[in-house]
């Protein structure tokens, strides 16, 4: 049996080799694309839109209003689970079975655009209407593909009652202040750990890089042609982050599943860095609204954070391109954005939508709104996920084993250089 299958493998391999020796027709660095205009008048025809999770469930109701305003148009929304949504998109792109439009994660943009699957944003859409950091997530190699739909950013959550005990009435605004506060939470307010930083591992860049960006770090160099991890700015941030672990303010052996919410409620860990969804999450486990607050990421040079969320795109294969863009344009209207916020609690990506009373009424939300003005997105290189996985691994060594931050960043940079930007 072994011999037979080995032979079969050899034959097949040989056949495959003779099949092709074409090689890749290297396009090199692609020229900047410009979006085509969208026809004027009402939208017509049927479009299919993919959206994930709760968005996919709630979008049809909103789409009805679009259909009412455009009697000739129909929007079919297919809801897709977040689990494995990425695989669904990549296989659909490969087989050419993409929908007309879709909601996509901000970090996928580089790859999908690199696959030549996305239609460039038409000039009629005003790019300055969106938060700058969010708009940047749609730009790949100088071309904008799609628009930001909704956004999120990371802030420091803290228990106000415990902060008072620790002697803090007001949130600190610089790095040293934050660390002293976390320390005081331990010494004066009975916390086991002052700050719930993630001890490296998957996604930890999302809580480390806000500090890097608050120190003016730029993750690209050579005018956006290469990664830049071993800059002094990033190094400062990593050293600062590491000091929480070496000083015992953050837990080195944090469990595989963070117990953020219960620890926040019990006061065991009264501070952490996370996004807007955590407000309802901590309230669900019984933290009262007046028991906690959020503060911007403290500044070294200027306060900044990570901006995430989802973008809306139109696929090149779409036969209803104009209608798809009209739908997206309609979704980006400030009024629609506010309506969407009230049905989904997704934060608007359009700046002017934040003037609406629905959003200004909540003081915590206002802090998110303010942070969004300066929040930044990682570079939209197709290889970002791979490169940042290396960063996460190295950060695990830095936090858990006390590895040298400079050496760790050098390793990350070497890996990043050998992987390349993928553009």
């Amino acid at each position, binding site marked *: 049996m072994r011999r037979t*299958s080995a032979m079969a493998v050899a034959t097949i391999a040989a056949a495959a080799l003779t099949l092709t020796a074409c090689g890749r027709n290297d396009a090199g660095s692609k020229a900047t694309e410009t979006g085509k205009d969208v026809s004027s008048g009402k939208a017509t025809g049927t479009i299919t839109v993919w959206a994930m999770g709760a968005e*996919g469930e709630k979008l049809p109701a909103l789409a009805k209003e679009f259909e009412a305003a455009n009697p000739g148009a129909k929007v079919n929304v*297919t809801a897709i*689970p977040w689990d494995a949504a990425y*695989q669904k998109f990549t296989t659909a792109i490969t087989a050419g*079975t993409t929908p007309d439009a879709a909601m996509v994660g901000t970090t996928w943009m580089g790859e999908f655009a690199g696959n030549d699957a996305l239609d460039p944003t038409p000039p009629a859409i005003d790019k300055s209407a969106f938060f700058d950091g969010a708009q940047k997530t749609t730009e790949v190699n100088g071309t904008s593909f799609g628009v930001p739909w909704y956004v*999120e950013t990371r802030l420091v959550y803290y228990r106000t009652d415990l902060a008072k005990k620790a002697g803090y009435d007001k949130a600190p605004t610089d790095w040293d202040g934050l660390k002293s506060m976390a320390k005081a939470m331990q010494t004066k307010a009975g916390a086991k750990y002052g700050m719930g930083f993630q001890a490296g591992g998957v996604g930890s860049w999302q809580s480390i890089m806000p500090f890097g960006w608050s120190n003016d770090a730029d993750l690209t160099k050579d005018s956006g042609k290469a990664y830049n991890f071993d800059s002094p700015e990033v190094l400062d941030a990593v050293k600062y982050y590491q000091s929480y672990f070496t000083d015992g303010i953050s837990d080195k052996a944090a469990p595989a599943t963070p117990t953020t919410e219960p620890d926040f409620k019990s006061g065991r860990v009264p501070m952490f860095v996370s996004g807007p969804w955590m407000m309802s999450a901590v309230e669900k486990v019984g933290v009262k609204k007046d028991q906690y607050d959020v503060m911007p990421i403290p500044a070294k040079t200027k306060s900044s954070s990570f901006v995430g969320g989802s973008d809306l795109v139109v696929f090149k294969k779409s036969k209803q391109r104009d209608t798809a863009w009209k739908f997206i344009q309609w979704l980006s209207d400030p009024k629609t954005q506010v309506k969407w916020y009230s049905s989904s609690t997704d934060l608007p990506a359009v700046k002017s939508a934040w003037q609406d009373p629905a959003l200004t009424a909540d003081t915590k939300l206002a802090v998110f709104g303010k942070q969004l003005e300066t929040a930044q997105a990682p570079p939209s290189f197709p290889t970002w996920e791979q490169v940042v996985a290396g960063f996460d691994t190295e950060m695990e060594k830095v936090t858990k084993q006390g590895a040298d931050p400079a050496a760790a960043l050098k390793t990350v940079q070497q890996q990043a250089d050998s992987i390349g930007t993928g553009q």
Partner: protein
Amino acid sequence: MTGMNARGRWLLYGVLTVLLVAVISPFVWMILGSFKTQGELLQSPPTWWPHTATLDNYTQLFSRLNFKQYFFNSTVVAVAVTAGNLLFCSMLGYALAMLDFKGKKALFGVVMGTLMIPGVVTFVPLFVLVANIGLIDSLPGLILPFLAAPFGVFLMRQFFLGLPRDLLDAGRVDGAGELRIFRQIFLPLAGPALSTLGILTFLGSWNNFLWPLVVAQQEKTYTLPVALALYSTGQNSTQYGLLLAGATVVVLPVLLVFLIFQRRVIEGIATTGIK
């Protein structure tokens, strides 16, 4: 109970009971958890019995889900895949175990080779293929690629190898055709193996997630696991209560199938082996 005294038997029952408790506790926790609130599910340390039992998770699930459609899709796919595997795998398994023919070794090599290739590597090419022959967004697209799994062929072959070959020779002496020998003599003896294959195949098909997700272009072709995943996990958060309620709903038909097929295993004892 030859050769085992009463004390030994009690000891065995004791050991098995301890093992049973250890083994089923997560299952029990899953069911109990489906009646808990998100807040309670996030508590540390976790609770066993729901403090504030709620049916919320189930009412949410059923009100948001086009349950009938998804249940129908899942059932059609799982039943078709199971039936196909029972038939086709026993056919080839029998041929590989009992018959002599040219290319037998190579064919067995192909079966084993297919069994050993990690599915992730052929996933994308298979999807492109299925898309090209127009099976996307259809139930046949969910069924056909899984109709004859090498796992089942291997299982049936091994089982038939354990049956006495005399039966084959006896059948030939009686003048029965090869296919009739298979159908009327060997297949009825394969009860335990077919039941086992049925359980495993049904379970695998019922729980399959990635393939139905990718093949379905509209929600009307979704299967139960795909639909359930829709509401339980968000981009940054997981609704544990919904997730556990969904998992409980999904597992019930599997339990039923297990009970039905297991009975066949016991019945099989009477008819198998040496009479």
